[in-house]
């Protein structure tokens, strides 16, 4: 109650975020993933591919390996190589002609028991402008989305910052390694009507009423000085203005916007 509303909203937001996403390590690409995780029964890896061509004809090459861990709370990590010198030059070239940088992952089913059932036909693709990739110094945020049954249904990529301003980028330093933030998101459960809480509140209120009946009984007696003018005011305005005071209503209503 004492919290300002804005901070409460922030809390709600963060709860949403925590509930729906599980951020996993961002890998700087210096080493391949040799964690014991990989050896675990549930985890498996699929390739993350990318494509950037001057003529904009997709030609996907492996960028790294996504290690997906199935289970009740699926998680994902990424192992990826540095960009080669040739690729760096090409990416800058593509950025210069405002081409696209595309990524794709194969469709998988996370909750399957056997390895063979996991892979499905087809790929999920997404893109960003190549210049945004260059100007953000390869800092991208990749999000994988699953459906209720654990199928991967979509992938999205954004760079931070996302704009193309035409700023100069140094090959060696800035375009060496990916700085990827990776997450996997399952659908959020949409809330139903909150009847239980509402009823609880109602009960509390009636209890309160029951506790000190004097206050309740003398309510009108106590506050008649507010109520009588208000009622009078309402009656007057009602009588004068049947369609209900134009602009005032509009302004009062404006809160809904």
């Amino acid at each position, binding site marked *: 109650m004492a919290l300002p509303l804005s901070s409460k909203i922030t809390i709600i937001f963060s709860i949403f975020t925590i509930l729906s996403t599980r951020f996993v390590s961002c890998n700087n690409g210096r080493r391949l993933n040799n964690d014991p995780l990989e050896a675990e029964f549930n985890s498996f890896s699929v390739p993350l591919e990318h494509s950037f061509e001057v003529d904009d004809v997709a030609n996907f090459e492996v960028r790294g390996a996504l290690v997906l861990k199935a289970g009740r709370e699926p998680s994902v990590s990424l192992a990826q190589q540095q960009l080669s010198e040739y690729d760096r030059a090409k990416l800058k070239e593509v950025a210069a002609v405002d081409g696209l940088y595309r990524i794709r992952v194969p469709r998988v089913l996370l909750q399957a028991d056997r390895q063979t059932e996991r892979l499905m036909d087809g790929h999920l*693709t997404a893109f960003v402008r190549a210049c945004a990739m260059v100007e953000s110094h390869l800092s991208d945020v990749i999000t994988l989305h699953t459906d209720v049954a654990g199928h991967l*249904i979509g992938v999205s990529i954004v760079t931070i910052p996302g704009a193309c301003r035409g700023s100069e980028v140094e090959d060696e330093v800035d375009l060496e390694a990916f700085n990827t933030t990776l997450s996997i998101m399952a659908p959020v459960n*949409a809330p139903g009507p909150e009847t239980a809480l509402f009823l609880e509140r109602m009960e509390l209120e009636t209890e309160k009423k029951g506790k000190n009946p004097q206050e309740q009984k003398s309510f009108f007696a106590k506050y008649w000085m507010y109520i009588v003018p208000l009622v009078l005011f309402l009656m007057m305005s009602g009588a004068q203005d049947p369609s209900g005071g134009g602009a005032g209503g509009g302004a009062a209503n404006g809160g809904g916007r």
Partner: protein
Amino acid sequence: MAKLIFLWLKCLVSCCIVEAVFEDQVGKFDWRQQYVGKIRFSHFDSHVQSSKKVLMATEKNVFAALNTRTGELFWRHVDKTGPEGNIDAFLLHGQDALLVVGNGRLLRSWDISVGGLNWEVVLDSGSFQSACLIGQQDTVKHVAVLKKTVISVHYLSNGHQKWIENLPESENIDYQALYSGGNGEVYVLGIVPHSHIAIVVYSMEDGEIIKQTSVEAPWLSNIQTSCAVVGQGMITCVDSLTMSLYTLDMHTQSKMTQIPLQSLGLEVTPHFHPVLVSHQPNAAHQPLSEFLLQLGPEHHLLLQLNSGQMVVLRDFKPVRHMTPVLTSCVFVSESEHNLQIDILLKGLLHLSLFNAETGRRLLDTTQFLSIDPNVGKPESIYVQAFLKKDDSVSYRVLVQTEDHTLTFIHLPGRVMWTREEALSEVVTMEMVELPLTGTQAELEGEFGKKADGLLSMVLKRLSSQLILLQAWVSHLWKLFYDARKPRSQVKNEISIENLSRDEFNLQKMMVMVTASGKLFGIDSKTGSILWKQYLNNVPSNAAFKLMVQRTTAHFPHPPQCTLLIKDKDTGLATLHVFNPIFGKKSHITPPALTQPILQSLMLPLMDQDYAKVLLLIDDQYKVTAFPSSKNVLQQLQETDLTTTQIWEVIIPTEIQKVVTVKGKRSNEHVHSQGRVMGDRSVLYKYLNPNLLAVVTESTDVHQERSFIGILLIDGVTGRIIHEAVQRKAKGPVHVVHSENWVVYEYWSTKSRRNEFSVIELYEGMELYNSTVFSSLDRPHAPHVLQQSYIFPSAISAMEATLTEKGITSRHLLIGLPSGGILSLPKMFLDPRRPEIVSEQSREENLIPYAPELLIRTEWFINYNQSVSRVRGIHTAPSGLESTCLVVAYGLDIYQTRVYPSKQFDVLKDDYDYMLISSVLFALFFATMISKRLAEVKLLNRAWR
């Protein structure tokens, strides 16, 4: 506590917007039109001589009575949609109309004089075959209903069952027809296809089987299409293979007599299934011994069967040199046995009466009638014949044409009225602004033209000023002229010639597209049909998309609408380009579309003639642009339009299927970028114009596992902005997507109720890029808020209000199955409604959360004008910011205006100008006088 209650009251006052209409406002801004649909069965009320009723049961499961003088509805009963309310049979006896409804589920009797229900009985299960009235000794007291396995007989007076009997060998024999000749026996005709006919005769009294015979008929496959009972219980059948007529006397014979058509000098048109029509004017008597035989689409015959002898009374064969096309022949009941035949002769309807006994044409009964070539061919005709005072025969005809128009014609070729029943099935619509008047357009044109020299500009200005002066003078003259006439006679007749935009752009042209392929232009103010256009090449399963390519704002270019008509099976599409104000087909030839069309979209780009560009993507992923001028291609920076896939989201169909994809409306404006919070900070809205709301339903329909999925996807990048699942829920889902919110309604299988849910998206406390929105440059995901509510009713359609600048608060317009249209303030669907009231939420005017949304009766915008079966609601902005135009369509059409924030920009009708001005003047004089007095006083003081 006091403060809390005080604020509560304040809150209530601010949100209880009284929106009811006053009694004197009824019908001032709104109108309703009621329809019945395409006729399936129709009978004239001949019970009373002076009756002016025609009764009809329609494909839309409506049973109605129309006034034959005016075409207005006397009464109407709307049953359930779908097969449950399907009207299988309609029998009329005197005052009582008997209907069999829902594949033989119900038998109802209606009193046709007032439209009240006499009785209703639930019949045994089983699929319906036939029904007939049964007469005995010149009176009709019973009705028999034949089902697949049983026959039951009911009293006409109260619906009680007299007897019910199982049909013998019903697993082998397909019983199809009923016959009663008025002698206390009921004949049931059944068939074993290509083998024999089975005839079972029941006693009317107790349902005992009197006789049971079977007759060889190896050529027969269906009784209802090939046979009829003629004369004294003679079954007459026609077979196209053996080219013969077969007759059988049900009372005596046990073998069919073959009469080759050749012996009568007749032959069947190849590939035509001949049709027999007999006529039983009264159920208590035998059918006529005359019957109609149709041997070809245009070839009808009148035959007579007299004691086994077949005689051709008249051959209505088309006369070669006149090339008339005979469309239909029907029997007409009256004391005399008359036969009606009509001939369509190249857009001319030619009707005459013939005497059935002799085959001779009756005098003075022929009429020629020119029918609008715009309505299609006549489909069915219903005739009412009557005797005039001088004992001559006259008749009235109800014609239903292919475009579902009903035309009622009186004898000397006079059209009494027409009804556009196609409007009972509006598929899509648009509201188009009316053009400027000629003088306004002249002025506009002056500014539009390029400057060419000082002198000519001056001359042009002078000439347009002159035209304005002339218009003003004529307007004054008209005012003067009208002032002398009584008020009631001055009518502003709306016609297509004097259409012009009004001051606040409140009057618009409603362009409606109907399922039958007929287009209508309706004036939104009065509801009168200003133009209609029947497109006769529309496939029956077509999908329509109507787009406004150019509005009226670009004078002198005419406004332009394009209708995309797509065959759902083949995917092949055609474009119909027309002027929405006059309905005329445009001279612009649309591109020929040879490939099936997958998708169409309107670009905001315009060509040099201000027509928006329409792109059509075919199954080869090639793109056709319309218009495809050089200018357009230049703007698209492309000479050869192709598509490339740039993102892909795959939703596995084995788990869920996509049911709706909803984007935002292109003409929507959002006035405020954010919401002011209680602490005076701003919460910015996430206003992504490319956002799509995708709704999915689970394939698993079990009530514990079924769910509804909501995905918010950016249409440009394919990024899934939000993905939510509503568990234990199922469709049908209704979605509205606007501004930064999505509202959807679903059925909760767990709690067995309808629920509303609202999702709102916010960027947060600061904007990422406040100048322009780009899907490519908005890396942070928006914050998502969601809340759900219980709604106490099912809904049939939903739409949000729309205003010119988006300043007015939004309401949701909800069509309910009860016929009401509810205007629900969006305020009540706000995920920020707090569960615990705090100082700040009160400051923000947020209503405390309550799980149930109540339906308040004053929220119904259509008071008692119920709108049946609302299928869609269309909203359009008007020139006034406070006003939104609403059209609800379904079986009925209802048009009105709504003021979501009340009329803050309009003075009320009863505004007291006199009082205000008199007060002003009084104050003015008071100041003058007091000033004068003060001066005098000051002067006096100075002298003292």
